[in-house]
């Protein structure tokens, strides 16, 4: 038995470059999956750490359903017997003069020390004289803050210096350490009220509660009480779609990885068929041959997996930055640190590599078990049989596609079913590669023979001749290319839908402040109204609420202004809905409608400062602002329900001629400058949104690149095997009088032929995959409709990738042909 295994394993040593390629193929597949998994896990872990740090020992949070809470309520909280400790919090963002924004917490050090540790750090390190000054200053002087080391580092600010914000300088009296990584500025709560112009209000109170039920009873009307568990759930729901996206990408990476490993395993079997036949004929049992083969595959799986685990760890360091950036842009600040190195990375990689190797080598193993030594040894590996196999495989493909269809039809049940469908589709499509080769070969033959003559014809003939091998290579390459096309087309379509949406909804000439977490003083609105020539001002307020235990948003707008200027895309209802909105109805975004299964005409009940309030839905509009769903209502209704006068953004609409517009916009810009508020023209605003969009898909883009890298190794490995197998043929070519150049040409043509077939197939499969991503996956996870938009760019990029990879893949074989050709003989070993 030892010798049987040895006979297999010696191949690895003999064909080092091939073995290395195969190993790298597996390693990259595993690395992609491990890297993605680690990155998403460390992002989520960091999120929990950051949340834990800020949460401290608090168990609950009490707040108004929307907007700030009256500070007088604290007296009621003091008297509540179920509240052990409480700490009022003002939790806002402040925009820095250097650009960007930072979280500013207004805290009361006296009360806060019972709840979390941040405030106890105040003056903890200073000597007694310095301590006195710091604390006096923090409590008593306006605009005094302590900042954490992140802010200090980013702005190169030390204690005693000023932190420059758009609302003027803040005096930094201390820099404190913050394990959460989130940049923080902390101000005394009284000073924060002043700074944010919110006298008499706080944002929320964090509580340490010992009788939750009693608490909820006493505060049932007009308040939201959230336990930490609920908060965590909300947070995780907030990230739900994003998490899903990451998981899907990990799975896709794994899928490509498995395919690659299958590819590798398949070639291993193919190249061992003859040996298997010999072994069987001299008395080795099928079990022994299978075992020997498994040992080889597992050796690849384990080594490649271990290597992949290590590579995946480093990949995750890179990916985690991108993931963190995206979460920060879209949800809340997060600077995830990569998970520390553990040997579990290697163990996981090995597990993944060997599992994928075994799964991937199942089909070739089954084939090995059926091997008829007679045929193998007589060289009667008739393409006839490969043809028949192609039919069977094609049938299996049809079955997979049918399964995919069923899964898509059931995908409304759970988004994972949609994912399963996507995989079934890709698998099914890959099984048609043999078919496609048979169909494509005659065309390619004509094409190549007309370009490079006979050698081209031979090259393409070789593809057909070695169908059993080439079809697997094409399948693997095609899948990777399809993923690239599908992901890119999805992103492009999404981008176009977003542009369409912006052009309809964000039609203001300019916007004062464009972020939902920055507030605009009401005076700005009042002064803006005084500027002559402005046709309308949309007063925008967006708050996050909890609806049916899941996060959602409420947006209040000036419906009269939007009715006049905006062009909403209606899913149901029409511009007439604005009349209803003016009268007190609401409109909801598509994502809200899908997520909560409500439609135009329905009534929904939301918690307000006045208790539960039931509202009628007048229409459903297309929206890409929030995947969690938005209820849009007129500001008058919002003020009535929530007593929250906060403004997040002002949209300025102007009717007059262009010349006039410029003059008015200048005035508005000066006004916003006066208040330290950002001002953006429509173009700037739209550009910024697209910028955010692009950074959001950075992870997806990098996944695309990884897919292509993985594909490259796949195809290179496959081609290498093909060529190594065919050294004898090279001898025949030589005998026939081909020059080295001719053989190189054949090799390259064959490689490009495979690349072309893979590419053509991927244009179809990739486009369908894009549709699946758009119609099934995106709709299921984000609850919004993206309109497919055909852009040539992804196809072009993929085409170039395919050609480049094909050429690069045959570089080594061609070089080895050139080097060895003169001594090659027509002889069996």
């Amino acid at each position: 038995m030892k010798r049987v295994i040895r006979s297999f394993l010696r191949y690895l040593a003999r064909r080092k470059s091939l073995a290395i390629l195969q190993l790298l193929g597996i390693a990259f597949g595993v690395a992609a999956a491990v890297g993605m998994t680690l990155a998403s896990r460390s992002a989520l872990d960091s999120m929990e750490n950051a949340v834990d740090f800020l949460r401290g020992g608090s168990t609950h949070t009490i707040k108004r359903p929307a907007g700030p809470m009256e500070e007088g309520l604290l007296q009621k909280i003091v008297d509540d017997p179920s509240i052990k400790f409480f700490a009022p919090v003002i939790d806002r963002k402040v925009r820095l003069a250097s650009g960007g924004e930072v979280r500013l917490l207004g805290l009361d050090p006296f009360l806060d020390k019972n709840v979390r540790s941040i405030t106890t750090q105040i003056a903890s390190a200073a000597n007694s004289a310095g301590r006195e000054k710091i604390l006096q200053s923090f409590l008593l002087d306006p605009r005094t803050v302590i900042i954490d080391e992140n802010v200090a580092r980013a702005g190169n600010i030390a204690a005693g210096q000023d932190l420059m914000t758009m609302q003027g300088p803040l005096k930094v009296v201390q820099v404190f350490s913050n394990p959460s990584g989130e940049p923080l500025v902390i101000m005394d709560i009284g000073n924060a009220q002043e700074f944010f112009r919110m006298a008499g209000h706080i944002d929320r109170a964090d509580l340490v509660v010992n009788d939750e039920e009693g608490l909820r009873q006493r505060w049932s009307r007009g308040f939201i009480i959230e336990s930490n568990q609920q908060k965590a759930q909300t947070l995780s729901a907030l990230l739900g779609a994003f998490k899903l996206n990451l998981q899907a990408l990990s799975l896709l990476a794994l899928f490509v990885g498995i395919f690659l490993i299958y590819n590798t395993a398949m070639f291993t079997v193919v190249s061992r068929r003859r040996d298997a036949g010999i072994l069987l004929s001299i008395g080795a049992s099928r079990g022994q041959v299978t075992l020997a083969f498994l040992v080889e595959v597992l050796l690849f799986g384990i080594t490649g997996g271990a290597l992949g685990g290590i590579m995946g760890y480093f990949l995750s360091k890179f990916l985690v930055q991108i993931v963190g950036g995206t979460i920060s842009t879209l949800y809340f600040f997060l600077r995830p640190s990569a998970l520390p190195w553990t040997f579990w990375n290697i163990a996981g990689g090995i597990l993944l590599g060997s599992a994928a190797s075994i799964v991937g080598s199942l089909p070739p193993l089954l084939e090995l078990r059926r091997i008829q030594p007679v045929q193998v040894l007589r060289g009667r590996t008739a393409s006839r049989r490969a043809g028949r196999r192609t039919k069977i495989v094609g049938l299996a493909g049809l079955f997979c596609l049918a399964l995919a269809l069923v899964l898509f039809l059931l995908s409304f049940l759970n988004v994972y079913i949609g994912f399963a469908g996507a995989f079934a589709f890709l698998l099914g499509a890959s099984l048609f590669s043999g078919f496609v080769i048979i169909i494509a070969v005659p065309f390619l033959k004509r094409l190549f023979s007309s370009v490079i003559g006979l050698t081209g014809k031979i090259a393409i003939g070789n593809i057909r001749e070695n169908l059993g091998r080439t079809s697997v290579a094409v399948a693997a390459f095609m899948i990777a290319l399809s993923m690239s096309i599908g992901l890119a087309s999805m992103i492009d379509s999404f981008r176009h839908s977003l542009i369409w949406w912006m052009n309809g909804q964000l039609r203001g000439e300019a916007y004062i402040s464009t972020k939902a977490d920055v507030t605009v003083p009401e005076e700005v609105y009042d002064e803006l109204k005084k500027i002559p020539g402005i046709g309308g001002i949309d007063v925008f307020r967006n708050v996050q609420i909890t609806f049916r235990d899941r996060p959602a948003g409420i947006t209040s707008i000036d419906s009269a202004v939007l009715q006049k200027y905006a062009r909403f895309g209606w899913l149901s209802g029409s511009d007439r809905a604005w009349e209803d909105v003016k009268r007190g109805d609401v409109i909801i975004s598509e994502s809200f409608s899908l997520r909560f299964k409500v439609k135009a005409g329905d009534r929904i009940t939301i918690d307000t400062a006045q208790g539960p309030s039931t509202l009628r839905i007048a229409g459903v509009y297309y929206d890409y602002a929030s995947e969690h769903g938005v209820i849009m209502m007129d500001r008058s209704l919002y003020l009535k329900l929530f007593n929250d006068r906060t403004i997040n953004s002002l949209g300025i609409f102007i009717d007059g001629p262009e010349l006039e517009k410029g003059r008015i916009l200048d005035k508005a810009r000066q006004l916003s400058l006066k208040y330290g508020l950002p001002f953006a023209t429509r173009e700037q605003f739209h550009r910024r949104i697209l910028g955010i969009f692009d950074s959001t898909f950075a992870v997806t883009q990098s996944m695309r690149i990884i897919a292509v890298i993985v594909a490259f190794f796949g195809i290179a490995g496959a081609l290498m095997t093909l060529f190594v197998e065919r050294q004898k043929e090279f001898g025949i070519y030589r005998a026939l009088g081909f020059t080295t150049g001719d053989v190189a040409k054949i090799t390259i043509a064959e490689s490009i032929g495979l690349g072309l077939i893979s590419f053509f197939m991927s244009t179809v499969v990739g486009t369908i995959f894009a549709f699946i991503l758009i119609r099934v996956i995106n709709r299921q996870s984000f609850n919004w409709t993206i309109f497919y938009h055909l852009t040539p760019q992804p196809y072009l990029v993929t085409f170039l990738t395919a050609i480049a990879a094909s050429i690069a893949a045959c570089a080594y074989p061609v070089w080895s042909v050139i080097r060895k050709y003169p001594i090659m003989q027509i002889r069996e070993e």
Partner: protein
Amino acid sequence: MTSSIRTYDLWKEYETGGHDGTALRGIELEIAKGQIIALLGKSGSGKTTLLNLLAGLDEPTRGRVEIDGMDLKGLGEKGRTELRRHKLGFVFQFFNLLPTLTSLENVALALELAGRPDEKLAGESIALVGLAGKEDRYPHELSGGEQQRIAIARALVKNPPIILADEPTGNLDSHTGTQILELLTGRCRELGTTLVMVSHSLKTCEYADRVLRMSDGRIFEEESCEGLAP
């Protein structure tokens, strides 16, 4: 128990479209122990098919094969593997040595599979085919004749009662071919091994006790090589 190999109405049809897919048409054959057989015939006459059926490497469409009185079909896959390990030796036209194993390892492998790992015996076997000193060469480092010698050593080392040889000289020049035939038949006679040599070379006849000719899936007994068309 006088016959070493016996077939009863052996048919083999290939599932192929196009031309006639029948390779064997009712072969009745009985080979006595220790006999050396030359099985001649044109290519495509069904020689190799028969050989593979005898070895249990392939299954007949109809009929049966008995080796040492044992029905191959009745043995099952496991039994047939055992049979190949202990009772059959193989020599191929293309030598079919495992390219990744040395000469010694190739020979030793057969012993190992037979459950009697013995490197010394393997070495002796190589010496007996005249290749002492080349134990550590890989197949591609040997000439064709040398490779075939190793293949013969591999077949003989486990001392099987039957050796099946498929065109053992087909890939060798005539001088080397003669040497190989002498070696193979000589060793078989010494050991009393039944040898079936498939060949299309008339030279084989000279070394055989009995000559069989195959044509179109049928088998004919020949008195001598005289008059046989090559």
